[in-house]
């Protein structure tokens, strides 16, 4: 096998792997056995020395945010844990809406997960002792999908329930406004 053929074969395999759906389709039902935690203190008001940008998303968190299995588990948890009781199906009620661009405590997946885990003032319960970290990441991934942040191939169009939102595959992505911005 000439080296030219070998290289082009390797390139073809790599291309196929790129097209591969590893991120979206993998189904990791166990989470990391140890050490998987939801970050604390990832509030958008935190000031970081230097350029004041928050550190990049950890690889683990990034794996959750576009994973179809995680989002669908989050969808089921959203109903089972009665998030709909305050947030409805994203439209809000007693709690703030989750489909809009306004994120009081940040709209990045790790910031949403921190909000779920720690609770927030004025009524958001702290779920850290009641849900596993993996479940909280799954919920955060689903919550991101309510405002259209997730690529359309990873969300499901609807749940098998009464139809109360436009199909998530048809939703236009809402911008994630910074917490301190005037539009909030």
């Amino acid at each position, binding site marked *: 096998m000439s080296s030219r053929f070998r290289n082009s074969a390797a390139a073809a395999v790599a291309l196929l792997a790129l097209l591969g759906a590893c991120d979206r389709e993998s*189904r990791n*039902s*166990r*989470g990391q*056995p*140890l050490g998987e935690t939801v970050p604390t203190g990832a509030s958008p008001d935190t000031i970081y020395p230097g350029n004041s940008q928050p550190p990049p998303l950890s690889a683990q968190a990034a794996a959750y945010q576009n994973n179809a299995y995680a989002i669908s588990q989050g969808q089921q948890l959203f109903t*089972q*844990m009665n998030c709909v009781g305050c947030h409805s199906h994203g439209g809000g009620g007693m709690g703030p809406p989750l489909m809009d661009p306004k994120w009081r405590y940040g709209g990045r997946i790790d910031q949403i997960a921190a909000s779920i885990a720690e609770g927030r003032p004025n009524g958001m319960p702290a779920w850290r*002792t*009641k*849900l*596993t970290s*993996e*479940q909280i990441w799954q919920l955060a991934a689903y919550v991101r999908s309510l405002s259209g942040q997730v690529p359309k191939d990873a969300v499901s169009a609807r749940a*098998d329930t009464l139809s109360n939102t436009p199909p998530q595959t048809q939703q236009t992505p809402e911008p994630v406004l910074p917490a301190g911005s005037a539009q909030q």
Partner: protein
Amino acid sequence: MKPVRLTVSVMAAIPVSGCAGIQTALGGQAVQSSDFVSLFTIFMVVCTLMYFVIVGALMWAVLRRRRESEACTVETGKHEVSTPQSRVALIAWTSVIAVGLSALAVASFFTDRSLAAAARNPKLAITVTAHQWWWDVQYTPVDPSHIIRTANELHLPVGVPTEITLKSDDVIHSFWIPKLAGKQDVIPGRVTDAQILPRQIGQYRGQCAEFCGAEHANMALDVTVESMADFKKWAAAQLQPATAPTTPLAAAGFNYVTTRQCSVCHNITGTPANGQVGPDLTHFASRKTIAAGTLPLTTGNLYGWIADPQSQKPGSQMPTMQIAPQDLHAIVAYLETLK
């Protein structure tokens, strides 16, 4: 004769062995399943006879000795000549098939009627809701104060016609206790029902029989058919709220279970744990298996299940939680008191 005797005894052993086994359809321990056994026997006799007739005719046709004069070959140009008996044989054969099938259909119809008759006037009402991948069982008597809620098990009094209303919370499942009755699919958006009239006391096993996802193979049901007295004793025990913990370890377990992850999904009547997502655990220690038949209920299995459910039933809804060892001891101690 020896090879013949050996063959016959081996062939007889095959169906006879089917009678043993905790989940066999040839058990006949209830009216519904014994009707199945009778009808199945009739069909098997007729079908086996038909098979040997056909195969016998085939072998005779292939192997029979032919006279030279009756050659139907190309050379003699007689490749279309037909024996006169063949027309009679065709009509006879068609009649045999038609009559045989009609007889079988009539037998099937009478069995249907017998099943319907056994289903009239049910005395016990149960509602079973199927989830991915467990069974939520609720006894629904007329008096709501006697509602019993359990999971993954059924206790049935012998000789009492029971009507089981079937619902699904998510996808299509199928409720099936082979030794007692045929299966009934459980379809979301529809309410179906199954009827059982158990005739023999014993321990049986049921299993989901419609592909429902990753853990379809681990969605079983423990069924106990017992005398009316034993059933009433069981029901009375089920109506009690959960036993209060007596030892310090069990009390620590109680604290964990009612304030941490367990309480979000599971219900233990009489305690602050009132989650409706997962199976009811009020009388968990009186059951025979964990996780819908996945593991027998022993202390070791309970430790393993709670420490890492995803290694036993990957994909199930119970997450692997990071529980510290002393908490694990406490939880298991407490759960084992929930008789």
